[in-house]
């Protein structure tokens, strides 16, 4: 308690990877500090491994010379090839400079419980409490809390294991690390991004969610399925993504504002239906929890590859609002903002997040619930005679919303070109009028947006521009290079379409602009790559086109969150 913390589950991509295999690594990355933590950080200072194989693919994530607590039972495995494998790996790792500490986890646990596989984690927790000098009493209380519904014997067994681990450290290990906890004064939520989305949907007052399962978006719907009906909401698992999107459109049309949640391949399928909502001016919130692409790609991995597909992906001119959540906290608030914009502007709001915040957990200040968050109650008032469905305001492009049940408001919405009464109209004037007003809504929204604050230097040698989940890592990197004296600032975009005012001005205050994102771009020094053919990263395209600035980009597609140290390295390279 009282630490900044960021944890990421390591989930194997395969349903059933072979045991003791490289691909089979499952686990948890934990980063904690006295202050709030905004990202998963760099290489690890300490690793705990239940077998040596899981380490192999992940050595790059360990700091050189870092300590590895290793289950030692494999050294004496009855299967000689396993034992040999263990020794070989042990020796190699030691040679590479890692500080390996063999811990008899299984043996110690077996002293206390019959099935040590189910208790090792508590023993390890005890080990760590010993190293980091955690208050054992808090851990005991937490165990009692988590297993509150279980018999006392279970609680006792777990506490015994905890204490055994603690005792083992104290008896066998020198290493102690003291990270002072700051006493928090305000309540904090411990959440991952997908739960934050679920909670945000409840807070926004939306009442319908339609989805089709897809990793890594689905867990947001799981959480929502559990709670939504308690506030009169409903989660519909549709037969496919197209149906989910259309169901949400129908629900929104009928008076709610609905959300549909998906990931890349599902988003591609929804493109046509999203165009319908834009055309018919029906509020709709779409959440795209991005994953590795293209095609089925890397379903469980991190990427930010869908930005341009979101902005431009639908045939014809379909102006929609595109937002990106920059943090787990943002996941919560962006649902509230998205619902409000969708209903005010009668249009589609897409919120982009990605696997790196969807399943990572952190603490966020507990939101102060606000009645203004919720959607207004269903309007069933009569519509004034002669009122037009699309009474586009010539200033704002906004038109009224009319909901079935409202006497006198009867009309037929359509995805065809239409006039102000929503009647099919193919003539050039009506077509132009519709396109103009739908586009103008983005201008109207743009005028209400605030220029985002620059992090770090307000002007200088280099501006790093990012969007979405990379905010924490980029700002941490900027903090570090500034400490070295570099004149670097960072700009982070939450609204990508429309883009807030003032960006161009900020950009022009810096000598160079580097866009950092987690998606593909041709490396600037790649074979054959020239300014004439280089394929830029997603946001770089948009900035270059709008601000005519020679924005360079650096991006990667490692299936991992971008590390602060990587950004530091890139900044140093480009500045020198």
């Amino acid at each position: 308690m009282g630490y900044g913390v960021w944890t990421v589950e390591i989930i194997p991509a395969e349903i059933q990877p072979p045991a003791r295999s490289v691909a089979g690594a499952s686990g948890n990355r934990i980063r904690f500090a006295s202050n709030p933590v905004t990202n998963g950080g760099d290489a690890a200072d300490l690793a705990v491994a239940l077998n040596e194989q899981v380490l192999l693919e992940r050595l790059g994530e360990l700091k050189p010379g870092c300590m590895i607590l290793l289950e030692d039972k494999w050294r004496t495995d009855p299967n000689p090839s396993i034992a040999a494998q263990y020794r070989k790996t042990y020796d190699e790792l030691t040679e590479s400079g890692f500080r390996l500490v063999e811990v008899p986890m299984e043996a110690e646990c077996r002293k206390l419980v019959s099935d040590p596989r189910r208790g090792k984690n508590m023993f390890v927790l005890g080990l760590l409490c010993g190293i980091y000098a955690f208050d054992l009493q808090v851990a005991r209380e937490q165990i009692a809390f988590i297993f509150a519904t279980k018999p006392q014997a279970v609680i006792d067994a777990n506490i015994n294991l905890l204490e055994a681990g603690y005792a083992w450290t104290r008896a066998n290990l020198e290493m102690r690390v003291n990270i002072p906890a700051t006493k928090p004064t305000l309540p904090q939520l411990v959440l991952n991004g997908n739960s934050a989305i679920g909670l945000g949907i409840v807070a926004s007052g939306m009442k319908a969610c339609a989805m089709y399962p897809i990793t890594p978006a689905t867990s947001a719907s799981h959480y929502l399925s559990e709670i939504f009906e308690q506030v009169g909401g409903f989660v519909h698992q549709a037969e496919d993504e197209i149906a989910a999107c259309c169901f949400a459109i129908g629900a929104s049309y009928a008076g709610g504002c609905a959300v549909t949640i998906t990931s890349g391949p599902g988003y591609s399928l929804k493109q046509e239906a999203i165009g319908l909502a834009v055309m018919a001016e029906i509020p709709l919130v779409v959440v795209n929890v991005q994953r590795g692409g293209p095609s089925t790609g890397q379903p469980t991995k991190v990427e930010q590859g869908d930005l341009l597909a979101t902005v431009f992906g639908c045939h014809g001119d379909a102006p929609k609002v595109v937002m990106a959540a920059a943090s787990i906290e943002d996941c919560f608030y962006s649902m509230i903002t998205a619902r409000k914009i969708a209903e005010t502007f009668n249009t589609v709001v897409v919120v982009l997040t990605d696997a790196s915040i969807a399943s990572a957990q952190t603490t966020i200040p507990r939101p102060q619930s606000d009645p203004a968050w919720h959607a207004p109650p269903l309007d069933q008032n009569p519509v004034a005679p002669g009122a037009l469905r699309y009474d586009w305001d010539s200033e704002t492009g906004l038109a009224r919303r009319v909901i079935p049940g409202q006497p006198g408001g009867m009309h037929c919405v359509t995805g065809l070109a239409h006039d102000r009464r929503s009647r099919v109209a193919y003539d050039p004037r009506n077509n132009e009028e519709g396109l103009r007003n739908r586009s103008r809504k983005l201008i109207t929204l743009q005028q209400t947006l605030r220029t985002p604050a620059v992090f770090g230097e307000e002007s200088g040698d280099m501006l790093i521009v990012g969007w979405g989940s990379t905010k924490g890592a980029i700002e941490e990197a900027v903090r570090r290079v500034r400490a070295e004296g570099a004149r670097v600032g960072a700009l982070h975009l939450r609204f990508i379409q429309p883009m807030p005012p003032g960006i161009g001005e900020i950009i022009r205050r810096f000598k160079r602009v580097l866009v950092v994102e987690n998606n593909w771009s041709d490396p600037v020094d790649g074979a054959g790559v020239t300014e004439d053919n280089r394929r830029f990263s997603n946001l770089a395209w948009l900035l270059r086109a709008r601000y005519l600035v020679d924005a360079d980009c650096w991006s990667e597609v490692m299936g991992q969150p971008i590390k602060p140290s990587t950004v530091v390295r890139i900044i140093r390279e480009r500045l020198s």
Partner: protein
Amino acid sequence: MSTCTLIPDWCRISEEATHSIEDYGRGVPRWCLGCGDHAILAAVQRYCRDEQLPLEKTVFVSGIGCSSRFPHYMETYGFHGIHGRPFPIAEGIKMVRPDLNVFVSTGDGDCCSIGTAHWIHAIRYNMDMTVLLHDNEIYGLTKKQASPTSPAGLKTNTTPRGSRLNPLNPLSATLGVANVSFVAQAVDWIPDLLHDIIRMASLHKGFSFIRVLQRCPAYLPTEFEAQTRNPERVLLLKHQDGLTLPPEIAQTYRNQEEHDPGDIHRAREIASASDPIPVGILYHNPAVPCYEDSVDRDRIDTAETTHAFLEQEMDKFTIWPTSSEARRA
């Protein structure tokens, strides 16, 4: 003076009637002369008038096609969506607003080709809506391509040497799907039965599927010619739990079968037949639950209850500044 005894019971016209048939119409339909869609529109408007459906509480949903222009010609709420997707749109509407009367107009391409997945699953969801499949056995709007229900051998623009496949039978297909609760067939050229079937479909609580054989004089001018000329080539299904035949109809169409709409096996056999064309209620099971009823509708949700729930839910994730409070949740 009440005239109720003088008119058939399906026609609930009374002094309270405030909407005429014309009140339900909007604009001049842009269908070809002789198009069966005109008859379907007339039957629906007549039914609306009979039931005095409130204009503002009624929504017609459609996809894209000649037939999908239907909602534009109703003075109710309408949703003319995208090709193949009327069902999920209608489901979203009904789920949020069970108080609305929901109708779906769809074509044989819209429903049985691009919309197949939604059609099959709509049957399974069994939400309370009335579905008119305007089956003209052709793509009308896009000008004569084969549809899944086109007869084998039909020459169209995409099958210049004749369609290669036997037609899909929408009735048989529907009857194979779980939760099917109401299946009927009507023809555009017997408007009274069309009307009666629409009425029975609407009274059924659940997904009421009516396949209407609809003439497209523009592209299949002779398709139902024989059947329209020769009443022998129509088979009327009647039953006390199904359709009761108006006397004039019963006299014209002598080919009749007593069919219990509760018998799904016989319904499937009837569905397979195409000559004579079965007309009437093939299947009806009022006991199948509706998807929208799986939600608790009695609760009243206000901003306050939402607020309270949100606080309570956040408690579960909260770490309070002092550790003893951590256990509050």
